[in-house]
């Protein structure tokens, strides 16, 4: 019986951990899903953009001794620029190329950034700076957890609200949605499609940076390959929720994060299969509902 050691406190601890991990997956997954929505491209470099954000924050705080809030703002700006740069260098020039070409370019960009990080920052793991305000331990009744664990989901909700406002209520967001449906007609309406795509990458990268900073505080060890697994899992979260759909990415992120933590909590002997859980979910969704939980029916254009 695997419930025998599971007290309510412990369960709550696991659940909050799952929710905060899920929030982080969700934030990264949105970047995948938005770029996919607008370009029908899996931006494989997204995990690396996320990884870079952790290094930016690390260097800001640990090397340049910036106050954490300054370092975090700089991180967000640099990550945003980096995302736009990747788009400019690896995707924009291939706008009219077949999708497979762009995909190969995406994989190339991903490897390039990973190796660039090794060259620039070294391959040895570094310790992400701790910020007391976020990392101190909090006790609620008998449940003790890092403040961060509660702050992450709340912050994520705020960012999400901002994102949904941008996408659904602003002119830029309207252009994004129009471009995601039909580049040519959007152009006919006077929409600057390239600019809209750049903004999409910028927004996705900002969310990756926000996720990265919070990730670094929660799991304070950074190394150049660390973007791979969260990147893949966030991608799976996006597929799970229905790629191209922002709500879907969020739902997928939470399902994956909570599922992963609870799996390990209830069945500790499966701890080694923690990562496999995400991939099993991917296979399952592709078999059962390939368009994802929130996915639209795919109708071929005639």
């Amino acid at each position, binding site marked *: 019986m695997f419930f025998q050691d599971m007290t309510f406190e412990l369960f709550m601890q696991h659940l909050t951990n799952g929710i905060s991990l899920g929030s982080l997956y969700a934030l990264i997954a949105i970047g995948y899903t938005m770029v996919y929505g607008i370009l029908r491209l899996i931006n494989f470099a997204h995990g690396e953009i996320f990884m870079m954000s952790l290094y930016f924050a690390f260097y800001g705080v640990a090397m340049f001794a910036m106050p954490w809030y300054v370092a975090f703002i700089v991180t967000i700006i640099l990550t945003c620029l980096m995302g736009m740069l990747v788009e400019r260098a690896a995707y924009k020039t291939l706008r009219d190329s077949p999708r497979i070409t762009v995909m190969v370019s995406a994989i190339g960009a991903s490897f390039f950034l990973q190796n660039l990080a090794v060259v620039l920052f070294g391959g040895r793991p570094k310790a992400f700076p701790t910020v007391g305000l976020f990392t101190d331990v909090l006790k609620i009744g008998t449940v003790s957890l890092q403040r961060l664990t509660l702050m992450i989901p709340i912050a994520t909700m705020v960012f999400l609200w901002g994102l949904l406002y941008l996408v659904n209520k602003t002119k830029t967001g309207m252009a994004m*949605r*129009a471009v995601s449906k039909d580049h040519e007609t959007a152009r*006919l*309406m*006077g929409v*600057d*499609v390239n600019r809209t795509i750049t903004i999409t990458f910028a927004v996705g990268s900002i969310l990756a940076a926000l996720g990265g900073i919070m990730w670094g505080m929660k799991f304070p060890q950074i190394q150049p390959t660390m973007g791979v697994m969260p990147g893949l899992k966030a991608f799976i979260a996006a597929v799970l929720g229905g790629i191209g759909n922002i709500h879907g990415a969020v739902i997928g992120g939470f399902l994956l994060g909570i599922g992963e933590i609870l799996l390990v909590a209830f069945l500790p002997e499966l701890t080694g299969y923690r990562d496999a859980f995400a991939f099993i979910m991917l296979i399952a969704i592709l078999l059962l509902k390939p368009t994802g939980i929130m996915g639209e029916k795919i109708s071929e254009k005639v």
Partner: protein
Amino acid sequence: MLKIENLVVSYNSIEAIKGITLEVNEGKIVSLIGANGAGKSTTLKSIVGLVKPQRGSITYQGKDLLSTPTKDMVKHGITLVPEGRRVFANLTVLENLKIGAYSRKDEKEVQKDLEWVYELFPKLKERSWQQAGTLSGGEQQMLAVGRGLMSRPKLLMMDEPSLGLAPLIVKEIFHIIKEIHKQGVTILLIEQNANAALKISDEAYVLETGLISMKGKGKELLENSDIIKAYLGETAGHK
């Protein structure tokens, strides 16, 4: 207003347009008729820069259009209502109309135009909060035309607005086209429905396999026996 000279367009090695010359004068309704594959849509796509011609020139009010990016066409007053309506199915009706005015800054005038479009197409007003994808084919065509009008075009080009619509709706669409024309908008119309198009046209060109085979006043062409045989069918001539 719009002048096309010796235009040649090819896709890979196949020439879709083999050197056509045509002119659209301000304040007129000009139609371009012809069968499938004659090069009608390609002509319109060349004008708005969606297709790059091999040779020839396209000028609009003396300005070279070939070097103008597609997204700037609406700023110059040129709007294309594309073939197959191409409304943004994931946007609401109102958003579709608003995106038609995307590059305009004169909010008050945009609001006025919105009311005008709603007046032309009362159905759109009823359904303004609905997603465009849920509209019927005829309503989508009306939305596509309305969206085009929201840019306040000087030259409105329409690619097969009657395609796949029920006869009653086709009638309504053509009625609306006349209505739009009365407001001083120049219209370049592409149609397979030659009969309906020629009736409302001041001038018309017949396009056949990439070449202009005939041109003239709309009414004249309507009575031309070759046209009747080729495009209107035997009975249509008696109408």
